[in-house]
């Protein structure tokens, strides 16, 4: 089957057709889905759409689009050095090609292109549901980690515009915590810059990154910034909801980042976020979360879901898969990239880089 198809690179000229093939995937309507593709693959500050591939039928008259595998750029840093790593993401397969080799053939084309260009790894932070077939195809599971789930009443949280949430003094840190609907780029970048690294690989976050993420046309973001009496930024928190769901709709609210200079400020941000955010379920990764933050979540009745190592049990949990492309030499600064303890998720509590 696959030999009859053509797999090529994807360009923005293909976006309209992609949206038509799978208009329901992102639920943003034709315009919203098109804007999402433009944002994620064309406006990404680290990588354009060069590794996103599409498959077409062999028809010479009108080659029909049959699938897409998206690859976007994520930027990581260790000891002051930065490296861009591509991430596998949105997948679209025409109905008649599901449960066929098409998905894997498109991924193989992505791997070929990465290998050709000397890119050593492809990451996948995708849902656990995709894990088994990828492990069979030679991917490695770096790890699975736990998350907390706080379930709330339908009318919980702040009602009204987010930026009208009253400024609150954190009970642990004494910081003044204020809401914003747009990212305070300077404050957030300042906090990240001043939080020391610990030798592990962490997401590189700067103004360009925050600005890009905030431009996701299918997302709603909620920001909190903690400041000292003197006005210095002490921490920030970013939460995400689907932009195509209502505040009390079925999709979860996810705390995607919580970075702070102190564990106390971090705990205050977590508490106010879980008290104020919309949504009936608030999720947060707990890997690398300080005890003070875990304590706040426990006091709020969080359910802590920990990995078992069994794919049948761990499906709801976040994970990282990695695939070596075969490009050599592998990046010298990341010899331990396939070990979970090499990754620093202290400030990242959800899939914040997409």
């Amino acid at each position: 089957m696959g030999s009859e198809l053509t797999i090529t690179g994807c360009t923005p000229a293909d976006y309209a057709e992609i949206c038509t093939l799978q208009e329901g995937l992102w639920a943003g309507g034709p315009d919203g889905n098109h804007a999402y593709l433009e944002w994620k693959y064309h406006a990404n500050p680290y990588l354009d759409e060069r590794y996103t591939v599409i498959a077409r039928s062999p028809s010479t008259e009108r080659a029909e689009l049959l699938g897409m595998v998206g690859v976007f750029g994520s930027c990581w840093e260790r000891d002051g050095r930065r490296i861009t790593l591509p991430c596998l993401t949105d997948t679209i397969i025409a109905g008649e090609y599901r449960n066929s080799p098409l998905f894997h053939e498109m991924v193989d084309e992505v791997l070929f292109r990465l290998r050709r260009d000397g890119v050593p790894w492809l990451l996948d932070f995708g849902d656990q549901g995709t894990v088994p077939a990828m492990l069979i195809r030679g991917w490695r599971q770096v790890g699975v980690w736990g998350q907390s789930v706080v379930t709330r009443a339908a009318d919980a949280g702040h009602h009204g515009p987010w930026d009208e949430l009253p400024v609150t003094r954190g009970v642990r840190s004494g910081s003044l915590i204020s809401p914003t609907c747009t990212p305070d780029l300077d404050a957030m970048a300042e906090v990240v810059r001043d939080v020391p690294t610990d030798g592990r690989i962490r997401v590189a976050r700067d103004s360009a990154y925050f600005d890009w993420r905030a431009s996701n046309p299918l997302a709603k973001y909620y920001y909190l910034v903690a400041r000292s009496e003197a006005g210095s930024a002490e921490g920030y928190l970013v939460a995400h909801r689907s932009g195509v769901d209502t505040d009390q709709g079925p999709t979860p609210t996810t705390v995607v980042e919580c970075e702070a200079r102190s564990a106390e400020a971090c705990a205050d941000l977590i508490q106010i976020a879980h008290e104020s955010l919309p949504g009936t379920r608030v999720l947060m990764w707990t890997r690398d979360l300080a005890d003070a933050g875990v304590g706040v979540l426990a006091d709020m009745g969080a359910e802590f879901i920990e990995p078992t190592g069994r794919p049948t049990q761990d499906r709801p949990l976040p994970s990282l898969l990695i695939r070596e492309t075969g490009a050599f030499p592998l990046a010298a600064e990341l010899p331990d990239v396939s070990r979970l303890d090499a990754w620093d998720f202290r400030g990242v509590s959800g899939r914040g880089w997409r």
Partner: protein
Amino acid sequence: MKDGLALTESEVRDYLHTLLCDLLLRESIPADHDLKDSGALNSIMFLELFVRLETQFGIHITAADVNQDNFRTVESITRFVCAKRVEV
């Protein structure tokens, strides 16, 4: 049906053949049919396969077990299940 722990290797193979035919909606699958290259089993089907194996044979399948050596053909899955049962 006999308890999974009591099945002979041949009976495990027959059980797996029936199970995979159910998942793939096929009447028969050759013993050397390549589940990796065919792409016929998607992740949801693999998860259902794992659940059925864990339930039938009382084994725990870990992420480290999920590789092409263990899950490429009916034959390789048979060997894996029989080896895994010994660990129980």
